[in-house]
């Protein structure tokens, strides 16, 4: 960031910008922040063989008016503006509106970031907002940037949902996150190609497709996206964190009815604590996610990129758990070979499972031991049976298996399977009343009886 500022300083804030046309040309121009769009047209039009009045400039979903200055546009280095030649009909209309006195103010004059206040706020909140709050609330989006590897300020951009071209003007501003995150909400006019895009045979205009860029690194072109973190907000209402009670600049607002707030540090702590106990929940629509820490209903985080706020290592762990959970939910099995754990989806009636794409181990789906013909052996006998079988297949492989067998034995001695889902469970002290910690199972069972927990268990051997 510091480096960027220094470079910016040396170049006296000149922005190096690309201008794209709908005829496939791209010009590279240098713009001064204090210039207005009229200056830009005067610079660009001659290079296209046009008069400045024949050109309109489109950026982030809006046609920019002549009076808009470059500073107001939220342009970064190497941003892309779109220069489109006006069609004759449009030119005449423009000319005539200019003649009318005080014609209705040019509505799409300001760039999206200026008109778009705050998807953060509910509509009634937007009306009762002070000027000072307005400044703080102005179009602040947060993204997880893959390049910067952190939480960054983000910029909202628009393109045509059909041709993905940026010479696109929206018919209305987005007013809430759903307008931006859900498809097919806002239509617009696309001029990226010579012939305007249409959505259907009736000739309806195409839909806008919103996306986000990181505002903290130099744009890497039109494919440089960042994942929007819609729950992260500027704390304009100075709400203290639910956990540490500090009032932080940037907070995460949970999607529950009470809109509980945590600071980013405490959100990370919350995720770590749940991850350590494997207590994320597989949600049918959102994926592997968490609810509001206060236990509110309907509060699951929908955009799972929020978990990218964890460290890389923690996020990888999150992904591994999520994948395993998905495989188990889908009726699959995890390869029982120590150090493998590959998720395998198999036909419901297939008992012989091969760890394809993983370690290649062939095992029985029912007893999770090496594949065998006939009934599964009762526990205890299996280890030796498996060993002799492995030995006859490949001596090297068997030697390795003996080493790993050590951990198998440890697991067998110190764990019992959950009577319902068979997850090996270790009892690390405490009472005999076990609750399966596998998300979605939660079976309450007795360590002694290895069946469901009952009042009798509590009376007879609550504590062994």
């Amino acid at each position, binding site marked *: 960031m510091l480096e960027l500022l220094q470079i910016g300083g040396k170049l006296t804030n000149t922005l190096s910008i690309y201008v794209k046309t709908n005829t496939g040309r791209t010009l590279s121009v240098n713009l001064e922040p204090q210039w207005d769009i009229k200056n830009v047209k005067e610079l660009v039009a001659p290079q296209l063989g046009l008069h400045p009045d024949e050109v309109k400039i489109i950026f982030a979903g809006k046609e920019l008016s002549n009076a808009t200055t470059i500073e107001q546009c939220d342009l970064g280095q190497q941003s892309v503006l779109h220069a489109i030649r006006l069609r004759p009909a449009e030119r005449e209309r423009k000319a005539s509106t200019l003649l009318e006195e005080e014609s209705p103010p040019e509505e799409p004059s300001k760039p999206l970031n200026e008109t778009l206040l705050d998807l953060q706020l509910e509509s009634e909140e937007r009306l009762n907002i002070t000027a000072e709050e307005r400044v703080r609330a102005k179009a602040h989006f947060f993204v997880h940037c893959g390049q910067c590897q952190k939480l960054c300020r983000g910029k909202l951009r628009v393109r045509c949902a059909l041709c993905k071209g940026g010479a696109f003007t929206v018919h209305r501003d987005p007013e809430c996150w759903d307008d931006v995150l859900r498809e097919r909400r806002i239509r617009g006019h696309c001029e990226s190609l010579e012939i305007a895009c249409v959505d259907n045979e009736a000739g309806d205009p195409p839909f806008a497709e919103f996306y986000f860029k990181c505002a903290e690194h130099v744009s890497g072109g039109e494919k440089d996206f960042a994942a929007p973190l819609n729950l992260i907000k500027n704390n304009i209402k100075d709400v203290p*964190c*639910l*956990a*540490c*009670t*500090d009032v932080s600049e940037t907070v995460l607002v949970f999607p529950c009815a009470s809109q*509980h707030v945590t*600071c980013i*540090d*405490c959100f990370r*702590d*919350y995720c*770590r*604590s*749940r991850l350590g106990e494997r207590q994320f929940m597989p949600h049918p629509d959102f994926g592997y996610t968490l609810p509001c*820490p*206060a*236990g509110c209903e309907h509060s699951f985080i929908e955009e799972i990129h929020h978990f990218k706020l964890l460290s890389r290592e923690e996020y990888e762990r999150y992904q591994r758990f999520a994948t395993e959970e998905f495989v188990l939910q889908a009726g699959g099995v995890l390869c029982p070979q120590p150090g493998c754990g590959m998720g395998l989806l198999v036909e419901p009636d297939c008992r012989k499972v091969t760890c394809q794409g993983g370690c290649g181990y062939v095992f029985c789906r029912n007893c999770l031991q090496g594949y065998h013909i006939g009934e599964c052996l009762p526990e205890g006998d299996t280890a030796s049976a498996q060993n002799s079988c492995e030995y006859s297949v490949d001596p090297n492989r068997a030697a390795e298996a003996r080493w790993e067998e050590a951990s198998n034995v440890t697991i067998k001695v110190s764990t019992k399977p959950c009577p319902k889902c068979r997850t090996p469970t270790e009892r690390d*002290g*405490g*009472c005999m*009343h*076990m*609750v399966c910690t596998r998300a979605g199972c939660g079976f*309450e069972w007795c360590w002694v009886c290895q069946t469901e927990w009952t009042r009798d268990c*509590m*009376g007879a051997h*609550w*504590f*062994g």
Partner: protein
Amino acid sequence: MSSMSPSERRLQKELMSLIKEPPQGVTVDTESVHQNLSEWKINIKGSEGTLYEGEDFQLLFKFNNKYPFESPEVTFIGTNIPVHPHVYSNGHICLSILTEDWSPALSVQAVCLSIASMLSSCREKKRPPDNTLYVKTCNKNPKKTKWWYHDDSV
């Protein structure tokens, strides 16, 4: 102050507010807290007009570094353990907000109030039916006990 973890900052704040505006009948043993921020002793007075009027009790709160995302460990300590159907004679308390119904939106103060109201609503002083077995065999940490909550009336 800045070198504190979020969990310590939260505890520090809760402590300040509990010292400044304690709920009726609740006092923090500040000396115990100054020695160790992760273990608090809190004195609770039996409310007037209840079975525990005139009695003094002491609670021990232990916090780990995941507080408030994980619940504190709370037990009665000292010579006077209240005789109550949800309080074992070793000081362990059967109260759902101390385990599965814990939420980081709760606080030390909320726990104290909840325990005070649990005492106040009691109509007969007696130990839990399984007190003897439990006390003889249980783990030192009440959070290692999986409680079965049955009776919300007391």
